[in-house]
C-alpha cells in the first residue's frame, strides 16, 4: 500500500510522471523529484540498509543527506546515499554491506554476537592470541568496508572548473536567502549554494501546521529572480574550505573551486539523536526527516507517531503530522516545564497528549518495524528499566531533542567556536576576516531572527567588501535554546546507539574511557566515533557530552575533534575528474613515433626507450641500436636534458661556485664535465658546461633535474647578487647526439664547419649552421664514440633530425633510444645521477674525486665534503662483471650484495654487454670488498646467489681513444 499523500503545496515530486526502479530485486515506483529513500518509504519499505558492524536494520534517520546506513549500489556507482540520490528510471539498486539484501541480510547474526565485539575489538584481536592475527586480518578485510569497487564500471565524466564571486553564501535556508538577497542589492556578485535539490531549507518543510513559511519562501525566491547579481545554485555542496576563501563545491557531475572575496556560512544545524535502547529501529527518525518526507516528497512517514522533543520544533512537527492525517499518540517533552510558546496550546487543541518531563527508555520493534515505545518520567533519579512502564503504540517515533551547528566549514576556515552552557550549543566566538556566520549555525533559532541575522551578516559582508559604508547593524537577541543538555538515557540492556555509522553504543564510551582513552581525540581513534561516512554529524556532539560526563568536566573543556575537508562524502570520480598532469614532448616526438618508438617516461617527458622492429624483440632492438653506435652511426634525441644559458661578466665565477670542479679557467670553445652538490656535499646533478664566449656559458643538466637546478641557481644568484643572468632553455632548445665512427663523415655533409680534430677537438664546442639551421655542437663522448651533441632551437629540430637521418641513410644511421644509451654509457662507466647515486651520495663515495677541486676557495657543498672526507666511507661505487660463462638468474638494479649474513651493498646498474660478452654493472659496496678483482655475491630473484667480481671501469675503451682521437 502506498504511503503517498495527496498533493502537498510545494512538493518536489512530479506526479505526472512515474519512474520504476528495483531495490534488492523488487520493483518499486516513484516520481521524478523523489530520492531513493522517499520512493521506497512511500512504497512501504522500512529497511533501507544494514548497519556497519552489527548489521541491524536501518531506515530513514535524517533525510538530510547524512543517512549513511542507507548506502546502495547499482554496480556502476558505489555507496549511493538513498536520502540524497535522485530517483532515475531503471535504477537497479541493492543495499551494500549485506549478504542477501537489506531485508534478508544473513549477516544480521552479528547483532546477536555484539557482546563479543566490544569497543576496540579490532585492535585487541590482533594482540592475543598472536596465532589468530592472520585469521582476524582476513576476517576483518572481508567484513569491513562499505561497498565493493567494480573495476568494470564506466568512467564518469566529472570536469572541474574555477568560479569567482564577491560573496559566497553557503546554505539557502531562510538566513542564507535573506543574506544573499540583501548582499545582492548592494551590487556585489553573490552566489548561494544549496546542497538540496531546491532552495529554502527549513522554510520549506518546518511549517508547524500552516503554509506561512512556504509562502515566505516563495516570496524570497521571487525576489531573488529579480536580482541579476544573485545566483542560487542548488544541488551543490560546499565540501571544503581552504586558505584565502577557496571553497570546493561539488555538484552531481562537476567540482568547482570557487574563490570568494567573502563568505557567509549559513549552513544551519544538524539534528542530534536521543540515546535510548533500540533508538536505531526503522521508524525512529528525526522530526525534520518526517517533515521532509511530507513536504518535499508527499510521503506519509508513519501511520501513528510519538514525538520525543525538547524544543518548539518537536511541537511544530506534531502539528505537521496532525495536519496530514497522521495520528500523534503523544508528545513527550523532556523538559519538565514543557513548551512555553503558543505551540503547546495548538498541540493540545489538536487533541494531542503532551507528557511533560517524559522520555523514551526503549523502542520496541517487531519484524524490523517499530511497534511502540516504552516511556518513563525523566524527573527524579529513576534508573532504567522501570518495571511496568507505559508502552505507547506507534510505528514512528520523531526525535527533536537538540541540534549541533553544521560548523565544519567554519572550523576549516579558522573560526573559533565556544560551547555555551546556557544554550548547550557550540557557536562561533571568533571568525576569520571575510567570514561571516548567519542563522542557526550562528546560534539564532527563531525564524524572524534568522532572517534578520542573515541580513545582518550580509550587511557586514558588503561593508567588508567595500560595497557599503553603513555601520554594522546590531545583532538581534536570541530568544530560546532548543538543545537538551544530555538527551542520553542509559538502558542496562544496551543497544543505546550513539554513533549510527559505526554502531557505537553508550557503554562503548564508558569502556573506552575506563581503558584510558578519555581524551576526545584518543577516544575518537579508539572507538572510531565520528570516523564513519557521516564523520560524526549525528554522533560527535553526544560523544563529547558523554565524555564530559564521564570525566566530570564541561563540554568546552573536553573540546571537539578537528574538522578537515571533505565535510561531505565526495565521489572519487570528482577528485580524479579531469586531471591535469602535463606531459612534455620534444619537438621530435612525431618523428620518433613514425620510427616505431616504444615510449618510456623520464620525469614528465616521454622518451623513446627503443625503436621497435616487427621482426625483433626488445633486447634485439636495443642490441642492434648499440651495435650501430659502436660500428657505424647512431642518433639519439637528448632534448630532454636541462639546458641553460649563463651570461655576464661574473658567469665564470658563478659556475665556479655552483660546480665542484673548476670552471672559470675553461677556455672559450671548450666544454667540461661538472658535478653539482648541495650544501651537504651530496651529488644533485651533473652535466657539461660549454664556454661560448668570455661571458657566455651554455650548460646542461640531467633530464629530471633541470627545473630544480634552475630554481636553485636562481636562488643562489639572488643571494650572491653576481653580475650574470641565467636563462632556462630546456624547452626552447632541442638536442640530439650523433655518435659513432662515422659521425664526422655525416656531419661534414651538412655543415661548412671545419670538423678536423685539430680545428674541433674532443670536448670542443662550436656554433655553426648545420643543414641551414643555427646549432651549437659539443664534441662529447657520453656513449664512448666519436660524437657530436647538436643543440638547436626547438623550432629547427624537426628539420635538423630529418636532414641528419636522410644524409646518414647511406652510412647506416640508426636512431637509438634510452635503453641503448644506458648500456653504452655503462660500458664507459659513466654514472647516471639518481640511479647510480642516491640522496646521500657524495662524490667521495661515487669515486669522483677527480671531478671536485677542494683547493678552490669555495663551491656549494665544499665545507661538508671537508668534514666527511677524513671519515671512513661506508660504501663506494665500483664496477663489476659477471663471468662470461654465467647463465641463470641475472641480478637486477637494487639487488643486494651479501657478505655472510650482512648486506654489503647493492647493484645500481647492470646490463649485458654484447661488445664485452658479459654482464657489466655498477654497485655500491663496502670498502673492504671494493678492490679490483674481489669476488662478491649478489642475491638475485628468489634468493639465488650470483657471483660477481669487482672490475675497473670504464669497461670499454678505457683510454677513450675512440671518442678522443678517432
Amino acid at each position, binding site marked *: 500500500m502506498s504511503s503517498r499523500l495527496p498533493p502537498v503545496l510545494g512538493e518536489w515530486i512530479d506526479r505526472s510522471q512515474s519512474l520504476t526502479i528495483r531495490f534488492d530485486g523488487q520493483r518499486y515506483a516513484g516520481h521524478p523529484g523523489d530520492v531513493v529513500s522517499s520512493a521506497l518509504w512511500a512504497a512501504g519499505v522500512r529497511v533501507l540498509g544494514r548497519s556497519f558492524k552489527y548489521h541491524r536494520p536501518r531506515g530513514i534517520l535524517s533525510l538530510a543527506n547524512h543517512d549513511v546506513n542507507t548506502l546502495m549500489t547499482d554496480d556502476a556507482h558505489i555507496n549511493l546515499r538513498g536520502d540524497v540520490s535522485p530517483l532515475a528510471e531503471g535504477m537497479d539498486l541493492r543495499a551494500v554491506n549485506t549478504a542477501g539484501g537489506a531485508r534478508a541480510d544473513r549477516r544480521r547474526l552479528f547483532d546477536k554476537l555484539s557482546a563479543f565485539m566490544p569497543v576496540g575489538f579490532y585492535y585487541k584481536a590482533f594482540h592475543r592470541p598472536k596465532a589468530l592475527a592472520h585469521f582476524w586480518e582476513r576476517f576483518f578485510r572481508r567484513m569491513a568496508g562499505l561497498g565493493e569497487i567494480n573495476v568494470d564500471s564506466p568512467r564518469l565524466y566529472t570536469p572541474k572548473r574555477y568560479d569567482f564571486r564577491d560573496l559566497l553564501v553557503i546554505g539557502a535556508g531562510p538566513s542564507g536567502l535573506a543574506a544573499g538577497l540583501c548582499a545582492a542589492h548592494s551590487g556585489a556578485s553573490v552566489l548561494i549554494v544549496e546542497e538540496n535539490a531546491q532552495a529554502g531549507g527549513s522554510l520549506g518543510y518546518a511549517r508547524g501546521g500552516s503554509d506561512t513559511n512556504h509562502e515566505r519562501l516563495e516570496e524570497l525566491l521571487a525576489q531573488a529572480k529579480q536580482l541579476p547579481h544573485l545566483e542560487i545554485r542548488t544541488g551543490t555542496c560546499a565540501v571544503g574550505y581552504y586558505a584565502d576563501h577557496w571553497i570546493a563545491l561539488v555538484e552531481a557531475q562537476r567540482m568547482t573551486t570557487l574563490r570568494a572575496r567573502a563568505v557567509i556560512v549559513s549552513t544551519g544545524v544538524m539534528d542530534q539523536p536521543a540515546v535510548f535502547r533500540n533508538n536505531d529501529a526503522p521508524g525512529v527518525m528525526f522530526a525534520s526527516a518526517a517533515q521532509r518526507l511530507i513536504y518535499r516528497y508527499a510521503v506519509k512517514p508513519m501511520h501513528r507517531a510519538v514525538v520525543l522533543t525538547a524544543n518548539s520544533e518537536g511541537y511544530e512537527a506534531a502539528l505537521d503530522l496532525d495536519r496530514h492525517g497522521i495520528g500523534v499518540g503523544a508528545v513527550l517533552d523532556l523538559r519538565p516545564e514543557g513548551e512555553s510558546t503558543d505551540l503547546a496550546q495548538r498541540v493540545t487543541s489538536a487533541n494531542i497528549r503532551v507528557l511533560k518531563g517524559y522520555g523514551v527508555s526503549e523502542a520496541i520493534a517487531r519484524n524490523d518495524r517499530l511497534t511502540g515505545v516504552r516511556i518513563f518520567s525523566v524527573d527524579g533519579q529513576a534508573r532504567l528499566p522501570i518495571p511496568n512502564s507505559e508502552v505507547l503504540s506507534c510505528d514512528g517515533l520523531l526525535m527533536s531533542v537538540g541540534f549541533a551547528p553544521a560548523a565544519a566549514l567554519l572550523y576549516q576556515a579558522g573560526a573559533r567556536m565556544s560551547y555555551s552552557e546556557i544554550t548547550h550549543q557550540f557557536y562561533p566566538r571568533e571568525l576569520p576576516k571575510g567570514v561571516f556566520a548567519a542563522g542557526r549555525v550562528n546560534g539564532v533559532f527563531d525564524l524572524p531572527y534568522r532572517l534578520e541575522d542573515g541580513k545582518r551578516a550580509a550587511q557586514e559582508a558588503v561593508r567588508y567588501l567595500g560595497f557599503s559604508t553603513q555601520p554594522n547593524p546590531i545583532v538581534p537577541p536570541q530568544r530560546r535554546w532548543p538543545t537538551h543538555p544530555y538527551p542520553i538515557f542509559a538502558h542496562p540492556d544496551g543497544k543505546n546507539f550513539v554513533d549510527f555509522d559505526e554502531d557505537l553504543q553508550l557503554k562503548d564510551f564508558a569502556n573506552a574511557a575506563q581503558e584510558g582513552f578519555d581524551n576526545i581525540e584518543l577516544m575518537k581513534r579508539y572507538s572510531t566515533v565520528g570516523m564513519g561516512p557521516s564523520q560524526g554529524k549525528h554522533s560527535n556532539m553526544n560523544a563529547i557530552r558523554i565524555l564530559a560526563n564521564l570525566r566530570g568536566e564541561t563540554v568546552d573543556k573536553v573540546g571537539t575533534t578537528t574538522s578537515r575537508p571533505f565535510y561531505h562524502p565526495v565521489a572519487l570520480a570528482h577528485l580524479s575528474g579531469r586531471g*591535469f598532469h*602535463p606531459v*612534455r614532448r620534444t619537438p621530435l616526438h612525431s618523428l620518433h613515433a613514425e620510427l616505431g618508438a616504444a615510449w618510456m617516461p623520464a620525469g614528465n617527458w616521454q622518451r623513446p626507450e627503443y625503436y621497435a622492429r616487427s621482426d625483433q624483440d626488445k633486447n634485439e632492438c636495443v642490441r642492434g641500436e648499440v651495435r650501430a653506435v659502436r660500428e657505424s652511426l647512431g642518433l639519439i634525441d637528448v632534448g630532454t636534458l636541462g639546458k641553460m644559458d649563463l651570461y655576464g661578466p661574473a658567469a665564470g665565477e658563478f659556475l665556479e661556485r655552483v660546480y665542484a670542479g673548476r670552471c672559470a679557467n675553461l677556455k672559450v670553445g671548450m666544454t667540461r664535465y661538472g658535478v653539482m652538490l648541495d650544501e651537504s656535499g651530496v651529488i644533485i646533478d651533473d652535466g657539461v658546461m660549454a664556454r661560448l664566449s668570455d661571458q657566455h656559458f651554455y650548460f646542461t643538466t640531467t633530464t629530471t633535474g633541470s627545473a630544480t637546478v634552475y630554481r636553485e641557481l636562481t636562488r643562489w644568484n639572488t643571494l650572491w647578487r653576481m653580475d650574470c*643572468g641565467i*636563462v632556462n632553455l*630546456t*624547452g*626552447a*632548445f632541442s638536442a640530439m647526439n650523433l655518435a659513432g665512427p662515422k659521425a664526422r663523415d655525416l656531419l661534414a655533409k651538412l655543415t661548412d664547419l671545419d670538423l678536423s680534430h685539430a680545428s674541433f677537438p674532443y670536448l670542443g664546442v662550436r656554433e655553426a649552421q648545420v643543414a641551414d639551421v643555427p646549432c651549437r655542437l659539443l664534441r662529447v663522448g657520453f656513449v664512448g664514440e666519436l660524437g657530436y651533441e647538436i643543440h638547436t632551437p626547438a*623550432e629547427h629540430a624537426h628539420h635538423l633530425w630529418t636532414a641528419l637521418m636522410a644524409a646518414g641513410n647511406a652510412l647506416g644511421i640508426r636512431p637509438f633510444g634510452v635503453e641503448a644509451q644506458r648500456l653504452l654509457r655503462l660500458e664507459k662507466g659513466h654514472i647516471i645521477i639518481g640511479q647510480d647515486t642516491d640522496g646521500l651520495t657524495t662524490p667521495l663515495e661515487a669515486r669522483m674525486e677527480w671531478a671536485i677541486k677542494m683547493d678552490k676557495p669555495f663551491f656549494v657543498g665544499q665545507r661538508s665534503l671537508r668534514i666527511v672526507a677524513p671519515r671512513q666511507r661506508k660504501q663506494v661505487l665500483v664496477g663489476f662483471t659477471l663471468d662470461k660463462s654465467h647463465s641463470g638468474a641475472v641480478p637486477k638494479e637494487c639487488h643486494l650484495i651479501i657478505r655472510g649474513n650482512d648486506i654489503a651493498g647493492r647493484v645500481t646498474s647492470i646490463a649485458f654487454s654484447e661488445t664485452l660478452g658479459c654482464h657489466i654493472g655498477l654497485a655500491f659496496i663496502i670498502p673492504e670488498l671494493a678492490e679490483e678483482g674481489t669476488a662478491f655475491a649478489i642475491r638475485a630473484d628468489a634468493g639465488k646467489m650470483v657471483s660477481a667480481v669487482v672490475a675497473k671501469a670504464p669497461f670499454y675503451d678505457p683510454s677513450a681513444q675512440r671518442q678522443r682521437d678517432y
Partner: protein
Amino acid sequence: METRRSALHDLLQQHNPRWSAMNGMLAPVSMDDRRPTIALADASCMHRMGVKGSQAEVWLHSQGIEMLPGINAWVRTPEGTLVARLGRTEFFLEDSPSATTTTRLRSTLRAASGLTPVIRQDCAIVLSGERTNELLTQTCSVNFAAYSDADRFAILTSMVGVSVLVIWELHTGQRGYRIWCDPSFAAFLWETLLGIAQELGGGAVGLGALIPEVVR
C-alpha cells in the same frame, strides 16, 4: 624551404589546414569557414624574442622601443610589435605578421652587464569565441572575466598545470586571448584546451580566422 616548425604542427595536420609559409614556418592560416563557439589557433609562426636584466629597459629604449609597459603589462608598438614586461626587468616581444622589430633587435642584441638575451621558442595559441570564458574557468584559476577588454595585463599563471603567459586583446571584434607556453608543453596544452573546447562546441581554426592580417 621552411626550417621552422611549430610544436603543434603534427596535431594541426589532422584538421587538414591550408598551410602557408610565414617567417620560415608553415602556418595553418585556414581550415574551414565554420566559426565555433571557442576557436583555437596556432600563432607560433610569429617571430619573438626576450631580453632581461637591469639594463634591459635602457637597451630597449636605445633600440627605439620608446613606449614600454609597466610591470606585468603589455603594449603594442606603432609597428604592431607586442612588448610585454614580465615582472620588473624581463621583456617579451612578439612581432605582428607585418612587423620586423624582433628580427632587427635580435641581430643587435649582445649580452652585457645587466643585459641577458632570452631565446624564445614559445608555442603561441590564440583563443577566442563566445564560450571562451567557460573554457578558461575549467583550466585556469585566474578570473579573466573580471578584467575589461581594455586592460593590458600580462598574466603569468598556470593553465592545466602548464606555466603560461596570457594577454588579451580584441580579435575581429571579440576578446581573444594570446597564450604562450614552453614548446615542450605545447601538445599537452593544446590537446587539453581543444578537448574541453570541443565539449563546449569549440574547435581548431586557421590563424587567419582570428588574425586576418596573416592572410592579407
